[in-house]
């Protein structure tokens, strides 16, 4: 039996620092917009603080809950069912920003696709552990393991939210990879998804434009390349030390979604290279400590869970940063812990709670 050790301070510290920095940056990026829209510059940041408190509370609570408790069909299949229901339901609810992503309860809004990520993680960990001996049996292991991810991803693409769908698939692939699935299956999977990906990227008008803009944003800096160019300008303007907290200008009229998807550009502009490297380093620390927990546990279930959680957060973080820096085409993926978005922050923090619990049960 694994002995209990104290909490992973590095993991906890990195998480809390990122959350705190996130609150500051959400305020900086959204104050003007919030004042414009709601009359108070604090609107966004107050909501975010609320969610962050709830999230940290969830994290602290879940750190103390033995992760094995989730290894139960009742938990896993309830989650799968509820997520499925919400993902279908959201398509029939009202549109905002031309998409079906949110379910609103009065003041609060909630993205079911955020719930899809932990649901898939718990399912995969639960399922793969039971099938660990026959991991390469594609009919009885791989197909059932991948099927929920596929269905969820398709529903999420329908919202449309290709970014989150890709994160779900990437996370699934990561867990399967670590579960020692034969690499050829991974290759097949990638090959099979290529035509679909190609279709989604180049036959949907706005994505096609984004792709072309990604290839050469300076070609059309006022049109398709606008977001990309503005993001690069924001990052470049920061220089080494940044132009100062709250002083950024790009967030005002130029950056799209400065408080969510492009918050890293605001960080870059206001805090400079020092700030950006610090953020990347914090994510690096988080990533390293998450994997360390996965390596050090002897429980395959815990390892899958840890890898699922760590990879989800790391993939989102590095993907988001890469988009901001023009390394990857624009996708609507938020920066974990930092971007404005209550449900995402809450669920991510809850997942970190589970990860902390795993890390303190290693031998």
């Amino acid at each position, binding site marked *: 039996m694994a002995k209990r050790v104290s909490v992973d301070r590095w993991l906890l510290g990195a998480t809390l620092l990122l959350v705190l920095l996130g609150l500051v940056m959400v305020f900086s990026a959204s104050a003007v917009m919030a004042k414009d829209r709601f009359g108070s510059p604090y609107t966004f940041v107050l909501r975010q603080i609320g969610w962050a408190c709830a999230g940290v509370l969830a994290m602290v609570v879940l750190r103390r809950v033995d992760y094995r408790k989730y290894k139960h069909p009742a938990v896993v299949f309830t989650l799968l069912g509820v997520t499925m229901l919400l993902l279908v339901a959201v398509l029939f609810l009202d549109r905002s920003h031309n998409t079906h992503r949110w379910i609103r309860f009065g003041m609060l809004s909630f993205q079911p696709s955020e719930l899809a990520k932990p649901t898939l993680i718990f399912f995969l960990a639960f399922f793969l552990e039971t099938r660990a001996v026959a991991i390469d049996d594609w009919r009885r292991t791989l197909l059932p393991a991948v099927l929920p991810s596929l269905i969820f991803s398709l529903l999420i693409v329908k919202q449309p939210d290709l970014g989150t769908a890709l994160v779900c698939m990437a996370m699934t692939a990561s867990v399967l*990879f670590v579960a020692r699935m034969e690499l050829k299956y991974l290759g097949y999977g990638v090959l099979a998804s290529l035509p679909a990906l190609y279709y989604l990227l180049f036959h949907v008008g706005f994505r096609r434009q984004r792709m072309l803009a990604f290839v050469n944003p300076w070609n059309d800096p006022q049109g398709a390349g606008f977001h990309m160019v503005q993001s690069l*300008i924001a990052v*470049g303007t920061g220089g080494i030390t940044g132009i100062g907290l709250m002083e950024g200008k790009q967030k005002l009229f*130029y950056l799209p979604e400065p408080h969510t998807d492009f918050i890293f550009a605001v960080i870059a502009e206001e805090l400079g290279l020092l700030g950006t490297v610090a953020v*990347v380093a914090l994510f690096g620390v988080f990533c390293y400590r998450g994997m360390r927990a996965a390596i050090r546990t002897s429980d395959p279930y815990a390892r899958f869970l840890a890898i699922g959680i760590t990879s989800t957060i790391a993939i989102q973080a590095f993907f988001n940063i*890469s988009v901001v820096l023009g390394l990857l085409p624009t996708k609507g993926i938020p920066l974990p812990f930092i971007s404005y978005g209550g449900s995402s922050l809450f669920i991510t923090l809850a997942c970190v709670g589970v990860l902390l619990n795993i890390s303190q049960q290693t031998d």
Partner: protein
Amino acid sequence: MAATAKHEGRLRLSLFAAFFCLWIFAICGRLLWLQVVEYGFLTQKAARQQQRSIEVSPPRGVIYDRKGRELAMSVQVDSVFAVPSEIPDQASTANLLAHILKIDPKEMLAKLESSRSFTWIARKLDNNVAGRIRALNLKGIYFQKEPKRFYPKNDLAAQVIGYVGMDDEGLAGIERSFNQRLSGRPGKMLISMDARHRWFGRVEKNPEPGQNLVLTIDEDVQHIAEKELDAAMQKTHAEAGTVVIQNPKTGEILALANRPTFNPNNSRGLDPKSLKNRAVSDVYEPGSTFKMVTIAAALEEKVTSPNEVFDCQMGSIVVGGVRIHDWKPYGLLTVSQILERSSDVGAIKIAMRLGEDRMYKYIRGFGFGSQTGIELSGETRGITKPVNRWSKMSIGAISMGQEIGVSPLQLVSMTSSIANDGVWTPPRIVAGSTSVAQGRTGTAQTVVFRPGQQHRVISSFAAAEMKRMLEGVVLQGTGKNAILDGYSSAGKTGTAQKINPLTHRYDRVKHIASFSGFAPVNNPAITVTVIMDSPLGEHHGGTIGAPIFARIAQQVLEYLDVPHDIEVRNPQRMLLRAKAKPEEEMEGSPDHVGEEVAENDNQQEPPAIVASAAQPGGQGIVPATYHSVTAAETEHAAPADGNPALLQSSKSLLAKTGTVVLDVDAAKTVPSFLGKPVRAVIEESEKAGLEVDIFGSGVARQQNPMPGARLPTGGHVTVQFAR
């Protein structure tokens, strides 16, 4: 088995970790690239879109009259610009703005979409338009003060001051010729936004205000000139008119007025005719006023003296093969009388005694044929041919002011040089400039412009003789209408036929009536030149020009507090003036000798063509007095430099008729209205095909033109009624 599995599991995890490590490296590399290497480039890009440096127009210098009253000034008005990215609904904003500014909403929308950070919406708006836009309180619409040119006196001295275009660029007059001094240097304003969502303008460089100019124009004198010119235009129905008032001693122009005129405050879509500063840019044949030059030159060269008697040969002389008639036959006249009565024959004989070279020397000496150098754009040199291009007839023609083109300003300067004891003074209209104090340390700098180089043309003795003779013109000759009350005055009348630009021949009905004179005679304070272009009906310098001169000079002298040099309300002079009969003020528009300027002549001279003049002597039409002169009769053979065209045309013209009678078909004889009531006058004039301008009521006491005169159909007759 388990060990290898565990080993592979670790390997996979390590590979997975390595993948993220690589990704992190890529990100850090990219960050270094963007934030360190590309820093300059991207910062520049950011500045370009976040900030916008706009030019701040400097306040244009004020133009003052000589007493510091503003003739042109700049007022701060609103310009509107937009920060399109702050506008929530561009389409509706564009619609609202377009409605107020009365432009196409699509155009406005295109403007708003052209930039995200800055675009001008409208510049230099009227206060009420700007107010209406401000009242909308639109988001993303801002106001910026800009100077706009304003002319508080509207059309006063419009052609002198000129006007500016949309960008405050001087387009005419002083505004144009002193554009550089007046405009100053534009400043720069950096418009950028702060993190609190506000646009603010930070002045990078203060605009340097333009220098202020002080003109020699006196607003009151100018006003007198304009008022009288307006009245004269109304009365004579002239096409155009010019009045120039100068201080003969300093050359300063006190007033310069032209009609038609314009209001520089709305300079769009103006008639080019009204923009023209005729005083400096018009070239016309001066006619008899030019006899001043002829006689002054002869006196200076001592080829004659005021009392020498010339035989005016009963009004006929042959010059260069062409016979020239005086409008009225004179016998023996002294030189003074030649000037007083404006005898062409006398002037020609004096000029012939003077000779071509000396005549030319004085023409140039009095400033003809070269720019006076006044600080106004578009000044003409006039048209003066060098002697070697004169024909045999030229000396005759030039002596009485034909075959030469002068500008009104040149005529003023010539008259002033006689008034100024024979010294020609360049006319000037800008007294100086003052720069506005720069910053705290700078001081205002006033520059007084130096007058140009003066030169003596005739001796003060000759000038004194000329003055006396010109006073004689006013007292005994054609200029009686120029008699002033309390001041002595001197001057010369002129009546010249206009050259029809279409036919290049002398126009039969269009004349230029002028008077150029000065007062008081012994210590002249002002020179006034009046030129009326194509007055309808009465058209003599003595009857049209002289009265305008008198009214203007009288008011201006009193305004300037010039002491009276003659008893006020001197009964003798009053009587003299009152008794001035139109007949006496008349002078023939002389026969036009003139070298036929062939069409292929490469100089742009008005071809002075042998054209017969109708000689309205007051009673009926006078047949044109152009006689064929046979070769045998001529004193000289046909001009050697050859003007076959002239000879041919005159011969063919004359061979058929011998005498040319002009305007018989078209002209209407003016009936006598005197003693008739208004109603009868109207009926009679309708019958005669003439228009009457009626003044007063009762029975007709006076009419102009006189009965028997001939007018073209539809001509105006002014009738004064009294009880």
